[in-house]
């Protein structure tokens, strides 16, 4: 096998900033985000697709960054957990996870919040069942999920109360 890596010029937007980077064809999106851009909020919890810790939004939809090749994200809009706070103020979902104790060790939290972000953008008033469905690809080893569901319900109620959309 040749040692030379095949490369692609990747043009994409990450958290509102445009990037033009040369990436190896075999670079996973999660490694591009963490290693090249230093966005280590996105976590790696398994060897591929099982845990949901690496969930980011690609064109507004939750997706596993560990099962996505960076080079396939050309012209895509990528949003990671780092983009949710605005000038030091937490988003409604982040506040929800804080207020309702939706995070314990916190390792699954970025993925949980990004999956919930995708859900609330599509369905701002989810039922408990909708929330369970929307987070069905995310595993938490600490909380037992009840607190996570309450956190998302808190955020949905906050958004309704303030008439705001989920953070972009």
């Amino acid at each position: 096998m040749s040692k030379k890596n095949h490369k692609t010029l990747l043009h994409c937007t990450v958290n509102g900033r445009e990037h033009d980077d040369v990436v190896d064809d075999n670079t996973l999106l999660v490694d591009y985000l963490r290693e090249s851009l230093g966005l280590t909020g996105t976590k790696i919890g398994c060897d591929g697709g099982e845990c949901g810790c690496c969930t980011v939004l690609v064109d507004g939809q939750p997706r596993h960054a560990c099962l996505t090749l960076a080079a396939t994200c050309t012209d895509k809009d990528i949003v990671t957990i780092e983009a949710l706070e605005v000038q030091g103020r937490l988003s409604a979902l982040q506040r929800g996870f804080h207020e309702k104790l939706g995070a314990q060790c916190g390792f699954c939290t970025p993925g949980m919040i990004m999956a919930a972000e995708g859900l609330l953008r599509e369905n701002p008033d989810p039922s408990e069942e909708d929330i369970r469905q929307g987070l069905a690809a995310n595993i938490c080893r600490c909380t037992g999920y009840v607190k996570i569901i309450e956190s998302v319900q808190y955020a949905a109620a906050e958004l309704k109360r303030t008439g705001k959309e989920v953070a972009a």
Partner: protein
Amino acid sequence: MEFMPNFQLHRPETIEEALEARMDNDEALYVAGGTDMLVNVRRGIEQPKNLVDLSAIHGMKSITLNSEGLHIGAGVTLKELHGHEAVVKNYTAISHSAKAVAGSTHQMYGTVGGNLCLDTRCLFYNQSEWWRQSNDYCLKERGDTCHVAPGGKRCFAAFSGDMAPSMLVYEAEVDIAGEGSIKRVPLKNLYNNDGLDHLTLKPGELVTAVHLPQELAGDQSAYEKARIRGSIDFPLAGVAVRLRKSVDGTIEDLAIALTAVNPYPQIVSGLEGLIGTKLSEESAMQVRDTVRKQAKPMRTTTVAPWYRRRVIGAIAKRLLEELAG
């Protein structure tokens, strides 16, 4: 980080370009959503020199309805499929199946084509490189023994896609693009009863669409699977049932198909006797037993074969009774 082989990525925008990219390059494989292929690449199960990514092909991403039926592009995502009105209403089991695949995030980008062409699965195969290596691999990949049935030369890895049984009970057909032509074949002809070589596709052939016939639209149907947890897990056993009955409850048409209990998704045979009858406790038990006989689960999951055989019969009976009302 897991092992990642050094491959070249190709991003064709048309079906023709995809076929060319596959033909013109050594050891090339297709990847659609990548929810199975990239796991296998990361584990060193697949070590392609070239990966042909199908996600930039626009011509395979729509669902269209006409007088012949419903036509689903191979690149349609499971989420688009299970939310589609005509699928929910007229081909209900297919919607159930798409919703039962993995978890909601996988459904956002996992595709219909990838699901139908999913590799077969086994406890000794879907493991990390070091795990497989320390077991001397197996017949399906690099090794020479099957750890499930060590005496033989057969692989019993189970086809474990959730979509195929529901599509089979609706007599789906698939379009297969190959060199210079597209042919339409019954979905059941896509599969072989062989864990090593379960697809009849020739190297480089591409599934481009699935067709569901109009004549069966609106028949009642359902799909259910047994799995370890309520989400993420592959089926241990899955059953799709389609039933058409007259106003007085007489069965006019019945089809049952299974997944995860054989190397191929299987249509249950021997149900003709029920046509023209009303479902009774006795005939429902017979269906249960027929299903159990035809399911041949092997020791390919952490759950024992005898349990999967029992549960697949029980699910088939329950779904049938629910549909028969």
